[in-house]
């Protein structure tokens, strides 16, 4: 149970605005961790930095003991970190099967996929996320909940060790949330380390045993969700100053 992801003094500045400010935390192998913070706290920027979509101004990111700071997104994916996006991304004019197949064709995905055949492996992932009956249709006609599932399927195609889920519940109905929750729990039981964000505390509270709290780009605290939710600064961040009495 070693440390799989180690972020140290990570800072990202966008011309004057510091989106992530001297942020440090760790995720251990096999852990199920949440990242909370109000809108604009810098959660997505932090994800972008870890997944290589943006380069940090300073600080280091280590994955599995290896320095991955400043690597390209595809290199990081092939080391074993897959991510989903807050705004769903899909290959709009390709079938769901081909959407997944792209991930299976990445060097890391192919190592596993070629044993079974790309299409067979991609279908098994579609089955795992519950979309196998829609394998031959393009994502443009899918409902939002299915697109969220597709996101996770695309990430799974690369055979990740660490899964970064950026707001996997946003814009979903209660039933759809349930489906995604079950899926994430299943993945975690299969041995994938999961690190996910959410700006609504309630969703994450029941799901993860540990959360890291973030506000205005800064690390605030971490611990069991119940404990973090009662933290003074976290409450202030969500509800404004002088809100302890309200809570």
């Amino acid at each position, binding site marked *: 149970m070693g440390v799989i992801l180690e972020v140290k003094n990570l800072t990202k500045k966008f011309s004057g605005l510091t989106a992530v400010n001297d942020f440090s935390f760790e995720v251990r192998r096999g852990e199920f961790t949440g990242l909370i913070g109000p809108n604009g706290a810098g959660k997505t920027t932090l994800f972008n930095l870890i*997944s290589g979509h943006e380069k940090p101004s300073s600080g280091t990111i280590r994955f599995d003991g290896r320095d991955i700071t400043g690597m390209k*997104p595809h290199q990081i*994916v092939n080391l074993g970190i897959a991510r989903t996006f807050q705004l769903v*991304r*899909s290959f709009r*004019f390709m079938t769901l099967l081909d959407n997944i*197949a792209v991930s299976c064709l990445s060097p*890391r995905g192919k190592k596993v996929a070629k044993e079974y055949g790309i299409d067979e492996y991609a279908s098994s992932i579609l089955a795992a996320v519950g979309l196998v009956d829609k394998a031959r249709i393009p994502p443009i006609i899918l409902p939002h909940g299915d697109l969220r599932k597709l996101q996770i399927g695309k990430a799974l195609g690369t055979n990740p060790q660490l899964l970064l889920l950026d707001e996997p519940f946003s814009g979903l109905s209660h039933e759809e949330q349930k489906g995604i929750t079950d899926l994430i729990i299943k993945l975690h039981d299969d041995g994938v380390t999961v690190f996910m964000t959410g700006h609504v505390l309630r969703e994450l509270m029941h799901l993860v045993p540990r959360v890291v709290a973030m506000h205005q780009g800064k690390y605030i605290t971490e611990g069991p969700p119940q404990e973090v939710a009662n933290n003074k600064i976290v409450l202030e961040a969500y509800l404004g100053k002088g809100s302890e009495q309200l809570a």
Partner: protein
Amino acid sequence: MRIIIKKIAEFPSNFQSYFRDWISTFRAKVTVICLIGLSLVPLLTQNPYFLGIFTTFMIFTIFAASWDFLAGFVGQVSFGQAVFLGVSGYVTAYLIRYLSFPWWLSLVIGSIIAVIFGLIIGIPALRLKGPYLALGTLAMSLIMYQVFLMGSLATMWENAFGTNLFGAEGVSQITPISSDTVVEYFATFLIMSVSLLILTHITKSNVGTIFKAIRDDETGTSASGINTTKYKILAFMISGLFAGVAGGLFAMRFRGVNPGVFQPLYSFYAIIIAAMGGLATISGSAIGALIFVFLGEILRDTQDLSLLIFSIILILFIRFAEHGLLKPTLERIQELWDIVLGR
């Protein structure tokens, strides 16, 4: 690249079943009928003028298909396709004229040089997206045009090698593939069929899946662990190869090349043809080129007007038939076919 090799290696073992599956589809039947039809043309007429038009049509088909591959399947809209056409045309013409290479070897070398230019254009193109890529490639073709037009370079080259390369005259008096237009026709026909077959096969392979992913969402593709840079360069090289093949054939068909082939006009031709046939279809280019070349022949006497007319046609296509002619036509034929068979 390893993926292509694997696919080809698999090919012969199940070729029969692959072919049987393919021929049972409606599209395949239409393709075969069209190919047979084209191969029968020399039986109907051996008039060099008519066969020449058909040869030109097939050359433009390859050229437009190479653009359609890049724009329709990889999403890289280039306005500099003429660079490949011109470079390969010049190399092929020069080798035939001054070094007496056989036509096929010159064509191969010309196309390889075009692939290298694909690499040269591909690398800066990685930093350019959307309209900037179009502008960058457009500038590239204008630069080539001006360089090959330069009088001072022409004199320098002539003094150094005693041959004509640069200058307005270009390289002229090239021997064609064969003095027999029927042989020329069939050589072009074969090269076109193979080119379209390879391009179509690439789009259906695993590499093709990655290309389409890059077209739909580049960031998403890199998040799927794909090195988009590598595949975009590969796409430019493949496109350059086939545009280069077209360029070599073009030089031989018109017995020479001049700096005019680098003009954006030729890139524009490829776009008109591909748009008429339908984007992301590859073989749609054949329909587009057929209309384009024959209409061009009809409008030959009013050449100033022809570009105006083609531009209007392009606008009409973009407005009223954005999917081009191929898919709707195939659907109509299929409906008709079903009626004839009484289904």
